[in-house]
């Protein structure tokens, strides 16, 4: 199912590559001992190093390195035992050093893969070109004053992993699947919290279009400021259509940086980037090459959790789940954990169904994650027990489920209180009656 834009002069396909900046989960910053924070008072979690005071020097955080290696391994990527930090030079108000310490020529992680789980249950491999470690910049606030921008350096120096995909994505759906999968892997690994709304996962989308059948790539636009999966998908749609229109009107798409405006539903050229950049990368003389041993890498590898792809395979082979269901269940670690608790003693397909069709609806309605589910796996399991033992019908089970959500009571209590048992055979009724009598002897 390919994504084709039908223009006036023919069909166009879209070529997309993503650069994802994932904030490394760590206590302190990449090159300084100040705290990694979100939403603190401005300039409170800033050291003299983060503020680039004269004479300050970087010292690298070993945990950030470990996190990057862990992520690389999670992407089935090659870990480069020697990597080098470069200075990327440019001036900006929230970049105190006047350069960002990054890794251009020798990144810590080389080629890897992300497997997309698509809507129709199919999967597709997308290449990861590289992952490198770099510093985050501070934040500029532009709308507080008519004449000034305000600079907060709390984020300055926080460790980032920049994960660059190959231009293997072809549709908004691909983009959504890639981002969701990457986020899932990062969360499984515990290397990034993946919160796009807090900016701990940000993405730049490189988009170009070409006529179907064309082999060469055309000029691409890099769309920035895309801070949700939905926006990334929208940005592709909007920008690809814009490019097609430019070409069909006889124009040329220029290679440039564009800003995504989710309110206006458009992308526009970034004024602050209008001058061609020349980043003048060179190895940072304040740091030495980062050398890792194979043993170090192997030790990290030994501690990797079961990742979503492996887990998905296991759910399909040992539980007989469909690719789609398995993919949905493993996407979030908490969902998988819930499922694995629920599936003990239950039919896997039934358990999967209940989570995906019933529980998810409730969670969505309440706007909470599965970890905050109003119904625990244990409670849901009890409900499924009643269903399994034919004490209630599946229609009644859904009613009981609703009541469980509303009243927070256990399934058997509700069934008892509301008299919802279905009468199927005399023996069962007798047994149930006896059980009730046995449990409340004083009432007799």
């Amino acid at each position, binding site marked *: 199912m390919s994504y084709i834009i039908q223009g006036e002069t023919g069909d166009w396909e879209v070529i997309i590559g993503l650069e994802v900046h994932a904030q490394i989960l760590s206590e302190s910053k990449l090159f300084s001992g100040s705290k990694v924070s979100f939403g603190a008072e401005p300039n409170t979690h800033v050291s003299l190093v983060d503020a680039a005071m004269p*004479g300050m020097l970087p010292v690298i955080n070993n945990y950030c390195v470990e996190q990057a290696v862990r992520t690389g391994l999670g992407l089935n990527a090659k870990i480069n035992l020697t990597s080098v930090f470069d200075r990327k030079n440019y001036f900006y108000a929230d970049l105190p*050093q006047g350069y960002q310490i990054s890794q251009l020529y020798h990144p810590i992680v080389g080629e890897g893969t992300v497997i997309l789980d698509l809507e129709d249950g199919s999967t597709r491999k997308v290449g990861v070109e590289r992952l490198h470690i770099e510093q985050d910049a501070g934040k500029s606030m532009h709308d507080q004053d008519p004449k000034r921008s305000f600079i907060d350096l709390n984020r300055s120096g926080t460790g980032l992993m920049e994960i660059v995909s190959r231009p293997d994505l072809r549709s908004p759906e691909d983009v959504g699947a890639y981002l969701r999968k990457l986020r899932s892997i990062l969360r499984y690994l515990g290397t990034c919290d993946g919160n796009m709304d807090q900016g701990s996962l940000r993405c730049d989308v490189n988009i170009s279009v070409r006529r179907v059948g064309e082999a060469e790539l055309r000029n691409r636009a890099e769309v920035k400021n895309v801070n949700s999966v939905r926006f990334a998908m929208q940005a592709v749609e909007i920008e690809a259509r814009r490019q097609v229109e430019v070409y069909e009107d006889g124009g040329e798409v220029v290679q440039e940086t564009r800003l995504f405006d989710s309110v206006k539903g458009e992308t526009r050229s970034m004024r602050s980037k209008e001058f061609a950049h020349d980043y*003048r990368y060179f190895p940072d003389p304040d740091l030495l090459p980062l050398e890792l041993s194979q043993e170090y890498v192997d030790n990290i590898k030994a501690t990797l959790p079961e990742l979503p792809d492996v887990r998905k395979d296991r759910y399909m082979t040992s539980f007989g789940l469909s690719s789609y269901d398995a993919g949905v269940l493993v996407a979030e670690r908490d969902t998988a954990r819930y499922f694995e608790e629920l599936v003990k003693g239950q039919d896997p397909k039934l358990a999967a169904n209940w989570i995906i069709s019933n529980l998810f609806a409730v969670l969505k309605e309440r706007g909470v994650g599965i970890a905050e589910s109003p119904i625990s796996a244990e409670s849901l399991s009890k409900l499924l027990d009643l269903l399994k033992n034919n004490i209630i019908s599946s229609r009644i089970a859904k009613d009981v489920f609703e009541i469980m959500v509303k009243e927070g009571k256990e399934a058997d209590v509700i069934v008892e209180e509301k008299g919802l048992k279905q009468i199927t055979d005399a023996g069962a009724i007798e047994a149930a009656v006896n059980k009730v009598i046995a449990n409340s002897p004083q009432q007799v």
Partner: protein
Amino acid sequence: MIDLTNNTISSARDGLKSGDFTAVELVNEHLRKMEKLSFLNAFITETPDIALRRAEESDARRASGNALGSMDGIPIAVKDLFCTKGTLTTAGSHILDDFVPTYESTVSANLHNSGALMLGKTNLDEFAMGSANITSYFGNVINPWKCEDDKDLVPGGSSGGSAAVVAGRMALGATGTDTGGSIRQPASFTGIVGLKPTYGRCSRWGIIAFASSLDQAGPMTRTVRDAAIMLGAMAGHDVKDSTSAPVKVPDFEAALNGDIKELKVGIPREYRVEGMSSEIESLWEEGIAMMKSAGAKIIDVSLPNTQHALPTYYIIAPAEASANLARYDGVRYGLRIEGDSLDHMYANTRGEGFGVEVQRRVLIGTYVLSAGYYDAYYRKAQRVRRLISEDFTNAFKSVDLLLTPTAPSAAFAIGEKLDDPITMYQNDVFTVPSSLAGMPAISLPGGVNTRGLPLGLQLIGRPFDEETLLRGAEVLETAVNFDVLPDMAS
């Protein structure tokens, strides 16, 4: 009354120890000398209050039997490139002319902790870029030495203020920094001892960066022994500097045993550059003869890539500087010249805040790193740097030290060598190669020329073997027996 400013660090140490004088007396006499020679413009900031307060503390420590060591009570000056907490730190630049750090550099903190007293911050070439101390925003420094024609001479650079202070007897020692010769060349021009330690020996933390892969702090003193004592107080592993070597600081003074028998001293033939003046040539010959008669074996060696060192340096140092100086942007500290956009504010601030030489080097550095030129200039220079470094490694397979002149001439008059930048750059022809290789090197007075101006000899040692370097230097110092003083120092 004996002039206390005629002391060396080691004699002052002994005098303080035996109670011949107090640290307060020592400081007061130096403060008087600073006042007398203030026209040399050697200090950007004088800190008499700090020095006196700390001298009182030192005397009190000593009185209670808690003196800290060799540097306790010793008045020193600090190059204004070292950040000093609560004291103006300018790097000799307009762009930092109101910058008061909230932190203390590791080296100046180490000195402080050893009991040394800071008399003030010394003048320097702007951001340590220069060889004559004429690029400072705070005006040029005048060399205490004069010759018959009475013209004012440059003290060398970039640590020109520190050199003038030590030569003029305004402090017993001073810190310098050396990127391509900035300690050794001014030491040579002012008849004092200047030591550039091995790269990694002294922490760079809190020193305003010029070229990070080359910058090293070191002592500027009157004697080799003083250099050994002061280096001991400055050096040490610092976890805040990723290029600080995790090695122990030996007792450098203990290495001065006066014995260089069997020591192999290499004479690199490529340093006999075309057009070398006869006074430098004979200075060198005399130095060789002295080392020989002290028992050293003199060995002819080759450092074939020597001639490539200066151009290599003038690619690498400006490139690193162009990035190191990007932080001076008018946003968080220092000068700001307003503009109608952020970029205009940057350009106005840096256009006005940086002097001509700094701008020149930042522009060269920007160019050699720019797209399309990086390989041709910067990477090429890094390759040649390896060749230069290997030259030294090879030479040190057969010798223990190298002996060369420090500079191609004696101090010159202010206003000379300004025809074009490259003429000025040639000052560092003998000091730059060892900087590129990270080797420790020392300059000590080798004699005076016919005009009565001091000339320096340079010894270069193996990485982290400052002990042999100092040992050799002390023997040479004894042989030279340099006892001339600039008139105004007494």
